[in-house]
């Protein structure tokens, strides 16, 4: 594949990502937002591939699409009475929000494009990311790795408790 093809593909995915993200944010239909998120996540995963981290890309699909998105969809389906609320009532502070949005983009882009010297050069990531991740978790990032399990445990306990709390709550009445 030559450079041009690659660029085209990059732009395709970049467009998919940005447009679908915009759709997520601006769509008045929550379920559409959620499904648009699929494309955002997928596009981001493709960008990760461009950043040579295939493992993170697949992780993105596994966790974000397979997990978080499904969770969000269930959440939407579970609370779907809001589907009828229209855009006007759904959005707060549109004008300041938009101004902020534009300002933010402008500011960040300005910073990115003016700060040229944080690019130390095009050093490519070498070797298989999977194995390197494996080694890193077992060496330098051991503690965070164990902490991650505790974070997950706590999240599980907390979320399960919250979901259950509700049932217990209801039974009391």
């Amino acid at each position, binding site marked *: *594949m*030559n450079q*041009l*093809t690659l660029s*085209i593909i990059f732009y395709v995915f970049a467009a998919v990502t940005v447009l679908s993200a915009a759709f997520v944010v601006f769509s008045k239909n929550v*379920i*559409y937002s959620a*499904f648009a998120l*699929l494309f955002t996540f997928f596009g981001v995963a493709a960008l990760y591939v461009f950043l040579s981290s*295939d*493992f993170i890309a*697949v*992780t993105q*699909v*596994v966790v974000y*699409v*397979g*997990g978080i*998105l*499904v969770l969000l*969809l*269930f959440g939407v*389906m579970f609370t779907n009475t809001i589907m009828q609320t229209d855009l006007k009532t759904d959005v707060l502070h549109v004008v300041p929000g938009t101004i902020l949005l534009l300002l933010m983009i402008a500011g960040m882009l300005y910073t990115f494009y003016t700060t040229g010297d944080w690019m130390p050069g095009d050093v490519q990531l070498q070797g*298989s*990311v*999977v194995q390197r991740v494996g080694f890193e978790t077992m060496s330098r990032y051991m503690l965070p790795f164990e902490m991650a399990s505790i974070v997950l445990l706590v999240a599980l306990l907390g979320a399960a408790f919250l979901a259950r709390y509700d049932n217990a709550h209801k039974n009391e009445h």
Partner: protein
Amino acid sequence: MSQSISLNTWSDALSGFNLGWFPLGLVIVAAVPLVFIALYALTYGVYGERKISAFMQDRLGPMEVGPWGLLQTLADILKLLQKEDIVPTAADKFLFVIGPLIMFVGSFLAFVVLPFGPAFIGADLNVGLFYAVGIVALEVVGILASGWGSNNKWALYGAVRSVAQIVSYEIPASIALLCGAMMAGTLSMQQFCVAQSGPYGFMHYYLFSNPIAWLPFLIYFIASLAETNRAPFDIPEAESELVAGFFTEYSGMKFAMFFLAEYGSMFMVSGIISIVFLGGWASPLPNIGSFALNTMTSGPAWGAFWIIMKGFFFIFVQMWLRWTLPRLRVDQLMYLCWKVLTPFAFVAFVLTAVWEIYK
């Protein structure tokens, strides 16, 4: 890594072939599985299912359409092409259309990493197995989209059940596959096969060379049934309860897409299980003395033959189960997943790890 790359000579050569800026070779590489799915799903998958079920039920099965009914599925697909395509008024048009698309693409994308023999694979990703586990997520979203988009009660029930089932069984399935990955020390699908090929044929398969491999093998097999919504886990499309599950409202070509996707993923899981535990394209025949059966039956063509045969064997077992067993109920399904398979998967995980370290 280098070995695997040299193995995929054909697909690499093809993918290097560019026409102008467009990688035409890749299209050809990608088209092969497509043709395969179509052929397989059309002629063997559905036809085989019907014939096998018929024989198990003392019937003849398709007989009149083509010799021995061989053209039956072709006729089905051709007919579905001609059927009117109904989009219910109440449905959400966008989701309704996108559902089968995502579903089919998801099931098709999984075939990228499936090696059809030592010389042919879409892409030998070094996260291959992980990718194969993960891409199911797309199907999940496709199912939700079609179930929700139909705005049909049966479809919604089917979709939600199906999603809950698929995501639940992904845990034991992936832990079981993890055991395989631990044995091979890689996630590349080609490497799995390489690691399990050798002069003693089937003796190199993890299933036979590793006493613990039976446990993850069984766990993955059961979980894969659930992931593809096959009986006894076919509650999402349980005919007697939910009419036709999440594709109740689909007609014509859209229905055909589900049809193909379903049989595609059936072959996919069969392929994965035969690669991870049964050596994929590695020939099962051992070299006996000077009678080099194994060497004789290795090679690109033989490899393709073996993996397809192994895949068919598992598909046969899937069908066999389907036509024998009643179906489980949702709570039993969850019980089986979380309280039987997942603990056992963890046990298998620990045992495999210990075995691999101390063997």
